[in-house]
């Protein structure tokens, strides 16, 4: 752990900021992609929240409280939006820059180190994921889906989700050999979206399936965001946060190791 802390500390804000600047300059001609990602999540919210929600009505939580189904699903879709925005940026875009466009080959000949690259990409993914989250929360508010003051904390909660998936995405980008591998990633992501507690409480699943759900990073993200937006705060939230942060740090560490191994050969 001290190695990680040392490496991360050495990666100055300035150096990772230079990479952030690079991504900004490269992306500013392609803002439409970012906006389309946000729109996609909103469409999900309309389809599931209002379409399906109107049929289901209210849902009774395991602790006995009853909430409108829309209010139950919306935070999960928000967590999903945070995941998708960040994953797209770190996995596919980083893979393209790393293996295909060889952008990091040039960068690592400068004073920037693999840690700076990893950190810069995480910052950038957070900014991109943040735009999705922001747009989504505004819409949730407009539709009256934010029930308590706790729900404002859904935004920082999403940052933990984004951090975890930024780490995971970075590692995947360095592990993947070909575009075909992204099909596997998308399959897993979709499975998490369907079964990670988005639409029903995990307690509704058969006992054997529940441990699998507990491993899913998105499950912890959903529980965290949903708990806060419904005002149900408990000590389990710290477990969710710890799990998400561990994924973030481990993901960044593996990614920078693999970048160094591939490019400093």
């Amino acid at each position, binding site marked *: 752990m001290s190695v990680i802390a040392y490496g991360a500390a050495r990666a100055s804000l*300035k150096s990772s900021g*230079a990479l952030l*600047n*690079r991504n900004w*300059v*490269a992306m500013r001609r392609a803002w439409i992609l970012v906006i389309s990602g946000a729109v996609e999540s909103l469409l999900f919210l309309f389809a599931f929240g209002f379409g399906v929600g109107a049929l289901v009505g209210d849902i009774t939580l395991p602790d006995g409280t009853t909430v409108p189904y829309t209010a139950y699903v919306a935070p999960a879709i928000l967590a999903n939006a945070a995941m998708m925005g960040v994953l797209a940026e770190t996995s596919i875009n980083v893979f393209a*820059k790393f293996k295909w466009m060889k952008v990091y080959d*040039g960068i690592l000949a*400068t*004073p920037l180190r693999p840690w700076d690259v990893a950190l810069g990409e995480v910052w950038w993914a957070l900014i991109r994921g943040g735009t999705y989250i922001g747009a989504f929360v505004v819409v949730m508010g407009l539709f009256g889906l934010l029930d308590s003051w706790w729900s404002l904390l859904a935004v920082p909660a999403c940052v933990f989700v984004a951090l975890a998936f930024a780490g995971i995405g970075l590692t995947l980008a360095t592990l993947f050999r070909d575009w075909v591998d992204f099909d596997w990633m998308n399959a897993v992501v979709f499975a998490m979206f369907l079964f990670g507690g988005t639409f029903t409480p995990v307690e509704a699943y058969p006992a054997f399936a529940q441990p699998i759900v507990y491993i899913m990073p998105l499950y912890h993200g959903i529980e965290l965001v949903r708990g806060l937006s419904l005002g149900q705060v408990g000590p389990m939230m710290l477990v969710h946060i710890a799990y998400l942060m561990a994924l973030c740090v481990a993901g960044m560490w593996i990614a920078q190791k693999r970048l160094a191994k591939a490019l400093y050969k």
Partner: protein
Amino acid sequence: MPHDDEILVRAVDLRKSYGEYEAVRGVDFEIRRGEAFGFLGANGAGKSTTMRMIGCVSQPTGGELEVFGRDPHAQGAEIRARLGVVPQDNTLDGMLTVFENLVVYAGYFGIKKKDAKVRAAELLEFVQLSSRSKDQVSELSGGMQRRLAIARSLINDPELVILDEPTTGLDPQARHLVWERLFQLKQRGVSILLTTHYMDEAEQLCDRLVVMDEGRIIASGSPRELIDTHVTKEVVELRFGAAHTTELAELALTLNGIGAQIEALPDKILVYTDSADDTNAALEARAISPTSVLARRASLEDVFLRLTGRALVEDEA
């Protein structure tokens, strides 16, 4: 060890292996401030690997290496901050325009945006790309991309510029433009380190050079010194029509005693001599009549052929 500020790079028994394969097998050299230093060798001789180690993007597996008196392993980022690097494949950022490539790259060195823009404009002027500054990198020709890579390597005002095969794959006009720019840099006192498998390039640009073959340095000195030490003043090239390699080897035997040394290549026989006239006379005396005879001054290429004992492999890297 006290560091002499005039020595930019110092290598002692430097080695690099990839598994079983030894790319660099113990090389020693010193590169001094203000000089243009060349690594001459065929593809696979270990030049690029040596460049990458000096550029702190590859870790030596043996021996010692100091760049600016520092340890590349522990102080890689500090060293890279003072280097300019033109890699063989340019590694330009394909998502950025020509101008953005320079300004963004400057950011990696911590140069302020305002200063970076001024510097980028100057450097584009220097490499004659000002009119292309808004173009995407992919729209540039190979020669322009290489010039942009050279401009980029100068963005941090480096103390040493490393160029890995700066003109490989360029057409003659583009090569000459690159040479002119490198020559100007040299005149400004910028220290240059380059690799090449073109002898004329080494002869024109390098103050000192080493010849590498199979991971080792087999000769070193100024181009003139190398020619004087390793080959005779002149070379006579003999061709024998469509004679095969084996026939040439037999023919070479009949030339025994003519000139200082005989070298049979697949397509011709080289006679190293201090007097081409004497050699021609000797050929006539033995009634040997090649289909063509070319007498010329010895070049670095002859040094290379003589030292490595084989023709240079000129395939594209």
